[in-house]
């Protein structure tokens, strides 16, 4: 079978690891990785898979069909950045959107969404929470679960409507 690891590529990190291990390890005790300094978010405010932690008892936030209080007032440029940003909308994980690098293939191609003649209100309600239309969707409820703020949802909607 094809060689999967090129010698040069794998040797550098290995040498570094061996050097580090040599400094810190005692007999019978490999070196532990350095503790992480930055405190990562815990996500304890949403349900988790534990039967003993409090998050394991939390309910799923119920689906909502959120009404759009007009006017939309979204910023398409900001929306484009949010849709492409992994830590924010991350729409590109599943959708082709304008400006997408390495888009996913699960959801429909949204790069010409602005030609679909969908209303702002419908688009807003679906980005906010798709589950009222399709309970089995894998699309995260960006509004209900606070992945995006109210204004950020409006920005993404403005971006989609401007995609022509």
């Amino acid at each position, binding site marked *: *079978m094809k060689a999967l690891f090129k010698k040069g590529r*794998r040797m550098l990190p290995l040498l570094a690891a061996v050097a580090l291990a040599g400094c810190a390890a005692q007999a019978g005790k490999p070196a532990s990785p350095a503790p992480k300094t930055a405190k990562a978010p815990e996500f304890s405010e949403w349900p988790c898979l534990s*039967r003993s932690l409090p998050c394991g008892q939390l309910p*799923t936030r119920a689906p909502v069909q959120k009404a759009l209080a007009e006017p939309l007032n979204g910023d398409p440029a900001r929306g484009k950045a949010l849709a492409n940003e992994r830590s924010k909308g991350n729409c590109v994980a599943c959708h082709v959107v304008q400006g997408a690098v390495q888009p996913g293939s699960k959801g429909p191609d949204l790069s010409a969404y602005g030609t679909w003649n969908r209303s702002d209100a419908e688009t807003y309600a679906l980005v906010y929470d798709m589950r009222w239309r399709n309970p089995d969707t*894998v699309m995260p409820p960006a509004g209900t679960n606070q992945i995006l703020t109210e204004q950020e949802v409006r920005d993404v909607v403005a971006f989609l409507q401007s995609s022509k």
Partner: protein
Amino acid sequence: MAGKLLLHGTLALATLFAVSANGQATEGDTYRETYPRVAIDPARGVAGGADPAFGSTLQYWESDEALERHKHWIGDPAHEWKLNWKFMDLDRSDDMHPGYLALDKGEKLFNFWAKREPGFRTCLGEGKTDLKGLAAGYPKYDPKLKKIMTVESRIEHCAQTALWETFKQGSPENNLIALYFRAQSANMPIKVDTTSPEIMAAYRRGENIFYAKAGQYNFSCASCHTTSGLLGQRFRGQVPTSPFGDAAHFPTYRVGLGDIESLQQRFMRCNLQARTRGLPPGNPDYTDLEVFYTVLSNDYPVSVPSAR
């Protein structure tokens, strides 16, 4: 559009999540969403990987011959995922991968402790001194300890009782010895005892966890690892693969981490990637999920050392 709520219809469709483990009260009034279930027959083991609901990929990775026939897919983004990355197990690549170096370290570490205290070996072997083939039967129910034991929890237990050392699950000591212990069963078919009522109770709890939606993204394991979800679809730069056969190659050398990773550490990282509270390795819920996952690898060979 009117702000009319269509909640009643959605609520009727969603399944209520019941907490039924360990004699806890069933919380039928808590609204918990689950992903649509797929029928899995635990008696079929890895053979269930042939089902379309899980991508029907078994045919491409079930044997060395199958992998050899499809090796031209390696590096092809449209097809590579169908090989379930099994071409990175054991000695299937020409070059030595870092999993082998980790295995060497694990062997040295095990020998160091087994020489200092022979009771460590016999504890891991539950009385036997030859560890060959034993890891293929994990997770298993231990009637003396009255709990489900994984390879990692056995190592933690034996370090505590025979060495008076703390080799916490997920620690470098535990992972390296686990890799060595598992390698003593390399190429032997995984045989989790599905006739054990305790194992099957854990399997059912693990199956519930597989379908339970959780976290900020409201994802379940099944959201990514069934065909109606993301299995086989591009998910940014990656393609989620079948859960069948997946437990066989752990602990694995993870190139992106530059370290070996146990199955339960992978669960934890997966939870965090899906913005869900991660649980510590050894947590009983992850142990249940490991039982479920390993039953889906039954009859598939233990495939360490491996790299991903």
